[in-house]
């Protein structure tokens, strides 16, 4: 224990006064002859024991008063709560302020407000001759301002510090701060760490910071710990730490399911925690989760969207002390309804022999956003192609020049064209009429084996390579890939080698090197060619498990909706990379608070990137003209580690920094709020009151 005004302790000698009065009071009582002395004697005998106790209590109370008052005036302080008293002379000081997400934790006021106060208090405690600087600590600390004596500038710097959404790297910040102190000619260094001391922000398995003295010697700086959490053992928190979105075709068209992972970071279990699913800010569904102490729980909520488009989906818990991590937002692109014209070149009353039967069934499967319209060739050529998002030519004869031109114009304007071949396709006629839309000219029909041949299974052609990186084939990994590779081809069309013009992508190659799938962008549109037939005449793809997803993804790719389904996963503090359409030129991403994050093109790649992302939530991407690019909108999420508010104990911190250099100040719990001297005064007042009561009795 230390005393701010130790001279007042001499006042405690006054506590001897009652004893001295008792011992040396020789006042002669006045002798009085009294007739009724018998009654005096009786009364004295009757009250003797009570009077002895009363006198003893009076003596103790008076002594207590005379002890408490001078001790209170001496302003005692416990050693564990002592301030940053400089024991080794003047020291250059760096005040490191933690800006982790943890400091947004609130109990009335936020920990960050307390951090500001603590930092200012630390500056006030410094002697005027001590140079100082302020180090706002983030995940990637910025260069530190040089040491200075101008306190106003430092106070202003503290006011400018904002709480972040990440886990600050206190180890690195302390190192940076220690290096900043190297400039000082003073022999001593001091680091003031204002933090909540969460385990995620400060790692104790690495070495503590070391500074360099004026002569180049290594110095362990004095470390003053200012705990903004006021000694709390735990900072209870729960958070949505993950969110996943996936289509749920089993629930209908445009139905999606969202799986949220909720984590309880407190030692108390939590029951029936409400989880809300919000779409564009409107609650559409609710669920409840039970959370075990320090446990995790998942909840899946589904929603069927009325229409396609880009939507923000948020999983939200009731706000707790740290509300920032109680929501998690995703931006999903719900496919719009696609209109596809199937041109059936070989209709048949027998469904399984009909050229369009399998394709129509695949496109119209439950959950598919496609509305397929099937026409035979003659009827189809009279259709206005511009009413459709894509046209599937299934084993059709070469159309007239007029239709061919209309198809070319349709593709050029952004339509998707699928070409499935068959025995109605005459390569020469097709090359002549539809050469403008074909990625490669057709050469000749090749028959690997007759379908009815006894050795058809072994001699049929098979896919040997598939471009799994292409959006259409991305899902065909693992066993799905085997399903694709096991397709048997009996007949297929060979293509001319690639000539000049726009490059085409061969997405699948048969074992003889012939292309099976060719994709190409033409103008604003896309063309996809399948070298075999879409019925069972030339291959058995339509009865393979890969057929349905393949057809649906081809339709999606042709209409441009497949790209939109790729969800961008971005994290606060990180850089985001977006892949815009060739026609899009994004300029910046606008954060929920309105902050703008510039997006710059990545050299050599058709992507743009920007960051670090300042806050969680939905970011809208805007081009240079100020037009929002809805398809590029994305959401940034928090690092789950930032939500873990587990704290280091005081002993662990003292052990890591070194018992000889560490001090704790401020935030010392209740003692800081109610100093000892106030308790002593209170004791004196109470003792005085009781002394009065005893004297009256």
């Amino acid at each position, binding site marked *: 224990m230390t005393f701010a005004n130790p001279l007042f302790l001499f006042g405690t000698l006054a506590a001897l006064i009652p004893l001295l009065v008792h011992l040396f009071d020789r006042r*002669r009582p006045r*002798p009085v002859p009294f007739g009724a*002395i018998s009654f005096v004697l*009786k*009364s004295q005998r009757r009250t003797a024991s009570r009077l002895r106790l009363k006198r003893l209590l009076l003596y103790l109370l008076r002594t207590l008063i005379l002890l408490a008052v001078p001790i209170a005036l001496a302003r005692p302080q416990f050693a564990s709560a002592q301030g940053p008293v400089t024991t080794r002379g003047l020291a250059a000081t760096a005040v490191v302020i933690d800006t982790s997400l943890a400091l947004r934790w609130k109990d009335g006021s936020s920990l960050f407000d307390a951090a500001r106060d603590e930092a200012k208090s630390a500056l006030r405690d410094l002697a005027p001759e001590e140079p100082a600087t302020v180090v706002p600590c983030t995940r990637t600390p910025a260069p530190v301002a040089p040491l200075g004596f101008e306190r106003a500038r430092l106070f202003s710097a503290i006011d400018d510090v904002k709480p972040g959404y990440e886990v600050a790297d206190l180890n690195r910040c302390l190192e940076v701060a220690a290096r900043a102190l190297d400039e000082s000619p003073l022999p001593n260094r001091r680091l003031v760490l204002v933090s909540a001391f969460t385990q995620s922000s400060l790692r104790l398995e690495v070495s503590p910071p070391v500074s360099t003295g004026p002569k180049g010697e290594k110095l362990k700086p004095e470390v003053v710990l200012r705990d903004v959490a006021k000694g709390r053992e735990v900072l209870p928190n729960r958070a949505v730490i993950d969110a996943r979105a996936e289509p749920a075709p089993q629930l209908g068209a445009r139905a999606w399911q969202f799986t949220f992972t909720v984590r309880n970071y407190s030692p108390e279990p939590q029951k029936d925690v409400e989880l809300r699913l919000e779409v564009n800010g409107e609650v559409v569904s609710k669920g409840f989760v039970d959370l075990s102490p320090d446990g995790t729980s998942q909840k899946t909520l589904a929603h069927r969207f009325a229409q396609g488009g880009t939507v923000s989906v948020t999983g939200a818990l009731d706000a707790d002390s740290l509300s920032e991590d109680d929501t998690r937002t995703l931006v999903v692109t719900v496919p719009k309804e696609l209109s596809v014209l199937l041109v059936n070149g070989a209709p048949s009353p027998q469904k399984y022999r009909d050229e369009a039967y399998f394709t129509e069934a695949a496109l119209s499967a439950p959950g598919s956003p496609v509305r397929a319209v099937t026409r035979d060739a003659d009827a189809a050529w009279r259709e206005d192609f511009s009413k459709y998002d894509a046209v599937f030519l299934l084993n059709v004869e070469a159309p007239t020049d007029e239709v061919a031109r209309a198809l070319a114009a349709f593709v050029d304007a952004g339509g998707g064209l699928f070409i499935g071949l068959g025995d109605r396709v005459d390569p020469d006629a097709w090359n002549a009429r539809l050469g403008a839309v074909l990625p490669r000219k057709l050469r000749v029909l090749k028959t690997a084996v007759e379908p009815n041949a006894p050795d058809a299974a072994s001699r049929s052609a098979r896919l040997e390579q598939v471009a799994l990186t292409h959006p259409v084939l991305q899902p065909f990994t693992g066993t799905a890939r085997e399903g694709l590779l096991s397709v048997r081809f009996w007949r297929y069309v060979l293509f001319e080698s690639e000539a000049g013009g726009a490059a085409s992508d061969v997405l699948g190659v048969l074992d003889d090197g012939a292309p099976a799938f060719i994709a190409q962008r033409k103008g604003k549109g896309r063309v996809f060619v399948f070298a075999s037939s879409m019925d069972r005449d030339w291959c058995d793809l339509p009865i393979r498990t890969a057929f349905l997803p393949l057809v649906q993804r081809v339709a999606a790719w042709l209409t441009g909706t497949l790209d939109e389904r790729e969800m961008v996963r971005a994290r606060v503090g990180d850089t985001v990379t977006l892949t815009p359409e060739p026609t899009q030129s994004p300029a910046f991403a606008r954060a929920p608070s309105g902050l703008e994050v510039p997006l710059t093109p990545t050299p050599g790649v058709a992507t743009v990137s920007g960051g670090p992302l300042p806050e969680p939530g939905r970011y809208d991407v805007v081009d240079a003209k100020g037009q929002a690019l809805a398809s590029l909108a994305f959401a940034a999420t928090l690092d789950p580690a930032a939500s873990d508010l587990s704290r280091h104990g005081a002993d662990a911190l003292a052990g890591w920094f070194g018992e000889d250099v560490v001090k704790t100040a401020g935030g010392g719990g209740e003692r800081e709020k109610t100093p000892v001297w106030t308790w002593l005064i209170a004791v004196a007042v109470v003792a005085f009151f009781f002394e009065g009561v005893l004297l009256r009795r």
Partner: protein
Amino acid sequence: MLLDAQTLSRLTGVKVRARAVVEGVLSGLHKSPHQGQSVEFAEHKEYAPGDELKHLDWKAYGKFDRYYIKRYEHETNLRALMVVDASGSMAYGTAGLSKLDVAKVLAATLSHLLLRQQDGAGVALIAGGQFHEIPPRASATHLQVLLDTLDAAAPLGTTDLATAADTLAEKLPRRSLVCIFSDFFDDRADALKRLLALRARKHDVAVFHLVDKAELEFPFDDPTLFLSMEDERRIEVNPREIKESYLEEFGRFLGEVKDACTAADCDYERVRTDEPLDQVLLRFLARRGGKL
């Protein structure tokens, strides 16, 4: 005129003080009840040799021609004894007169009144275990003897009411009025009871319980060494600490004395040393119907 202690204390001697009180008492009585001897006719009896001739009823002889003797009630005067406690504690007084002074004045006044109506009055002093008695007589010159005796009485020794009670029981063969003036500070439990037992012997007992204002109120503040006025006892106390307990004890004592007197069918009069004594006697006489 109120004959309070302050006024009487300015008068010297029991005789003067008693006279002043007597005058106060007499002026306070509306009608004197003392109309000559209390001799009343009882019956006639036929003369027989040996009867006193002075009691012959000559009127009856004239009427009946026979000798009749008039017979009367027992023809004696009232005998009263003033028993004054002259123990050490009776010397205490804070209002000008000590309790003993007050007792003397009251005894003298009552004696004066009794002799004035030709009753017999005597005085008994109890002091230091001694019993000094001036027997009751009805002669007018006896008053001076009584006053001198009272005047000479000085406080001495402990209160010994029990001895006084025994002595009185022996020396009072006839029914008498016994007026007891004391503070009754006798530690023996049966002292008062034995004194009041005189009532059982057909004596008329009147108790004048003398108390001082300081004994009633205990007006002490500073630490005080209380000295006994009868023996060597002494005690140093802080009066404020025991005041409550003292008042409780003393109040209980006063109640016990009064209750004992009432239970024994004795007159009880509590006399404060600071109150007018004529008022005390008038109150006493009024309760007895205006006569002794």
